[in-house]
């Protein structure tokens, strides 16, 4: 573990969104198709809101 995992902001967002979406999709839906739809929708909103907040904060970063 000494090498470490150096992810960019977007890579970390993508990994987080993907893993949490899959976990919540499996917990909240029983049917495979419904699970897939939930995961895709959740992932989309995670990324959209994450990137959106990033751009909304851009004017305050400098």
């Amino acid at each position, binding site marked *: 573990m000494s090498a*470490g995992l*150096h*992810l960019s902001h977007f890579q*970390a967002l993508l990994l*987080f969104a993907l893993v949490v979406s*899959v*976990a919540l999709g*499996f917990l909240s839906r029983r*049917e495979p*198709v419904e699970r897939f739809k939930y995961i895709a929708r959740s992932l989309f909103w995670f990324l959209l809101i994450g990137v959106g907040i990033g751009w909304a904060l851009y004017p305050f970063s400098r």
Partner: protein
Amino acid sequence: MTEEAIAKTEAPPRPQAAPWAVVVAIAGLLVPGLGHALLRMWGRALACFLSVGALVYAGAAMRGNVFSWEGADAFSRLGFVADAGSGVFYLIAKSLEGLGPDVSHSYGDYGTRFLATAGVLNLLAALHAYEAARGRKA
């Protein structure tokens, strides 16, 4: 989708007695996914195990802060509660952090959040397993 097709994907467990549901919840807390595995909900068990495991591994590899129970302030103690929610993975994360946390970089800070999310996600999964064992969740 028909009822028969739904039953094929993952059958809802029959309602169990409260003591057994508590055992299921505690098993799920200690080992992510074990609670659902005891209920033969294999897909959810695997998803919980892999999700919590991936978050803990990534969090530790990103040198996130693994809080200990000897927290100096309320935030640290709250962080410990969140981290400890991942059960045995908390101990694995502790053993993996050879160089200690490094939150001076963004990835270290993200790692701290990944570890906390893994614990909270497992708490949610254990609660779901308890509710499923009581027959209140499918």
